Structure formats: C-alpha cells, structure tokens
C-alpha cells in the first residue's frame, strides 16, 4: 500500500525527468553531436581508487561509459554524447544510487573552458524547455542560471569556505572531508559554481594545466550545493595515464580492494586522441534540481529498496 502511494506521488518528478531527457537530447542534436550507445557490460572498469564496479559475471557493469567513448573519440568521432545507466557498488545515500543515469559528452579540439560554456548553455536550454525562464528554485533558494556562472578555483574555495587552506588539507589528508562537508554545501547558492583546477593528486584523467603545473584541468558543477558534473581537458599522454592508473591501483590494494587490469586498448587509444574535453553529468541530480527534490529517491521510478 505505502509503496503504491510513493510511486503515485512521484508523477510530477518523473514528468520533469522525461522533460530533462528529451530537452538534453534536443540540445546536443541541435549542436551536431552524434548520440551513441556503448556496452554497459565491459571486461573491466578503468582503475580508480574510490569507484567500485558491480559484477556481471564474468565481466562488470560499467561505472561510466568513459572508456568506450574515448576509444570512439580517438577513432575520429569528434562530437558524441550518451545517456546511459551506470552502476557503482556501495554507493547509497540521499544523492547516490547504485544504479543511476549519466549524460556524458566529448568534444574534439576544445578544452575544459569551452566545456564550461557548453554546461551554461545546456542548463539554460533545459530551463527554457521547461518554461521556467532563466531561474530555478531549489530548496527555497532562487538560483540564477544566466551566463556567466561563477568560476571558482579549488584553491580559492578552500581559502573562502574551508577550515583549512588547500595545502594544509592535502598535508593532513583532509581534502575530501573539507570539500564535501564544508565547501560543497556553500557552492552554487545564487548562481551555479564551476569549481576548477584540482590538485594533481585528484587529477584523475585530466590534463595537467599548462599555466599552473601543480593543478589539473578538471572542474565540477555545483548548483544549490548539489554536485552535478565532473569534466576534464582530457589527458592524451598514455604514459602519464598509465602511471596514474598504477598509483590508483596501489591505493586500491592498500585499502583491500582488487586492483584492475591495465586497460591496454584504452591507453593505446588515448595516445591517438585529439586535444579534447569531456564531461559526465548526473541526470538524476539534474532532475532533483529542476523538480526541487531533496532526495534522489524522489526522481527515479523505483529505488532498489522499493523493488
């Protein structure tokens, strides 16, 4: 009975979800992107310290479509996007589901700065499609989506909102704690925030900044305290990427996790990849924003617990 009632109460949010999906597709198609589908079931995910895949014996469900999409980029598909279900083990909370939806897009011959502008345009396109103009109310805060969004470097964010400077937080191994608990809730309150230039230890698959070699060209979008997307200027140096994967695997082993095999085909592909940028945007959280939902549970038809 109560489950039925919950499902009925989700109608408005699910209508917002459908609208977000349709409008996002229209946005990319109008910009000559090719919509692609890559396999959800892959032999092994890319080695990352803090992301765990769900098994699909004897293979794995992809935690993101990044691996296959970059191989396409290397093969000359210069503008591609994908909306796909992704899977991550042991992630469950008001903003996390083990099965969720990512929108990823990749663009050749551009860097993270142009990608930031894509994000501004996409959100304005979505709010326009929803007929709410350029402003969205999230958790009683009126947020202005018009361009330009606030651009804030990670270093400045620590100085402005953190209990420790970036250097100190890194020294004490408190980077994530200060970022997640102190800084994130205060980002994107009036206008969306583009948090950019991450320290090299958190470079992931991003290129090292040319102007500022202690940082990587990585950024995240925050709106109303919600972390929505993670983008990079893509790293195309296969040897550098191999070293990073090795150190990610070392962290995994130290924490009792299984190391992943070196993704040789992927490494071979990125050495042929053009200068490019790519981003993964959480569709469920984007729906939370436009549906003004406090929990990710409210924007999916069924959570695992409701099945």
């Amino acid at each position, binding site marked *: 009975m109560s489950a039925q009632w919950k499902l009925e109460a989700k109608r408005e949010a699910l209508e917002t979800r459908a609208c977000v999906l349709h409008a996002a597709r229209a946005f990319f198609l109008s910009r000559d992107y090719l919509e692609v589908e890559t396999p959800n079931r892959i032999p092994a995910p890319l080695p*990352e*310290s*803090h*992301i765990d895949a769900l098994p699909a014996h004897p293979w794995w469900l992809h935690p993101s479509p990044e691996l296959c999409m970059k191989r396409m980029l290397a093969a000359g598909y210069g503008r591609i996007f994908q909306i796909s279900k992704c899977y991550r083990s*042991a*992630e*469950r*909370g*008001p903003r*996390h589901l083990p099965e969720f939806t990512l929108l990823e897009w990749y663009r050749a011959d551009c860097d993270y700065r142009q990608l930031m502008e894509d994000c501004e345009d996409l959100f304005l396109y979505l709010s326009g499609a929803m007929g709410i103009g350029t402003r969205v109310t999230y958790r009683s805060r009126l947020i202005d989506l018009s361009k330009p969004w606030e651009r804030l470097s990670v270093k400045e964010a620590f100085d402005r909102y953190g209990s420790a400077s970036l250097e100190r937080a890194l020294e004490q191994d408190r*980077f*994530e*704690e200060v*970022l*997640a*608990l102190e800084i*994130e809730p205060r980002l994107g309150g009036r206008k969306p925030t583009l948090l950019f230039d991450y320290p090299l230890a*958190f470079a*992931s698959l991003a290129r090292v900044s040319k102007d500022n070699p202690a940082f990587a060209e990585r950024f*995240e979008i925050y709106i109303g305290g919600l*972390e929505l997307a*993670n983008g990079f200027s893509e790293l195309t140096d296969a040897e550098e990427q191999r070293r990073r994967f090795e150190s990610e695997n070392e962290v995994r082993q130290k*924490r009792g996790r299984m190391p992943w095999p070196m993704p040789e085909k992927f490494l071979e592909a990125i050495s042929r990849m053009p200068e490019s940028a790519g981003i993964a945007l959480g569709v469920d959280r984007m729906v939370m924003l436009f549906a003004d939902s406090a929990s990710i549970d409210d924007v999916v038809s069924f959570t695992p617990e409701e099945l």
Partner: protein
Amino acid sequence: MYSASDLRKNLRLMLDDDPYIVVDFQFVKPGKGQSLYRCKLRNMLTGSQIDRTFREVDTFKPADTEEKNMQFLYKEGDSYHFMDNENYEQIALTEAQVGDAKNFLIENMECKVLLFRDRPIDITLPNFVDVVVTEAPPWIKGDTVSGNYKPVIVETGYKVSVPPFIEQGEKIRIDTRTGEYLTRVKG
C-alpha cells in the same frame, strides 16, 4: 569488526571504550573521492550525543552489549525489578535507566533488557501493550467542542489521547514506539 560501510541507523558500536548507538547517518561522497559517513551517535551510558565523520578505512568493534529476555516483576520506590528468564536471577533498574518504558511496564510483561558488561543500560518493550484505563472523563454525547479525542489515564499512570467512546475500566492497545492509542481491546 564493522567497517564504515556497515554503518546504519541503530547500529551499536564501541567508540573510545563506550558503547554508542547510531541515531542518524548520512552517506557523502565527493566526486571521484572517498566515501564519508557522517554520523550522529548517542553514548548509551551517558545519553550525550556526538557528531562524527568516518572514512571508508575506519573499522569498529561491535558494542559489548548483550540483549536478554526478561520479565518485569514489580516496581518498588524508584527501582524496577526484572527476572532473567533463563537463570531466574533478578536485577533492578532505576527509573532513569528504564526511561520512557516506565509508561508501559505491566507486571509479568516480557521485555528485552540490554546489558553492557553486565550492567543494564536499555530496555526494549513489545511493540504493543494492552492496558486498563483507570481514569476517563465521561463521554458527553453531542459534545463537539472538545474535539474527537479526550485524555485518559491508564494503569501505569501514563496519560494518552483516545476517542471519546473509551470508558473507565476498558482495555486499550498502545503502540509503545509512538506512545499512541491504537484500538480498544475487547474482553
């Protein structure tokens, strides 16, 4: 041993050599970063609450607590006497240790007593108890001013809101988790 990913509401664990219970819990994970577990915990000895954030590498010992089935025997002054159903040993809890459960304890009732190193620290009642109404204002038919509920007092001294047709001497069922009236019990 528990790891951080075992954390959930109502988990009992040891922290700084005291037993704690998780009363609130939130999973937080910054993009591509490690998982953080934000918890509100209550010290089961002192009742004080603390906030703690754990990381995925943190591990904990389960609280050295043991739950025993016991029977409530009687109340004498400030102490509540229980008997262990297995070995018939008797123990006494103070009114503070019994807490809100005192509102629903009836002689011979079965309940669970939580012990920490043989010391009683908490008590869990059955979800529903049937109690006799000992004091009830009369039902005045057609009285719409005082609303749909009236206050009554039950045999344990607990005051509860019930529908106006409940009379003195009747038995009613109470949900011990919410303290609310559920239904009239016949017989």
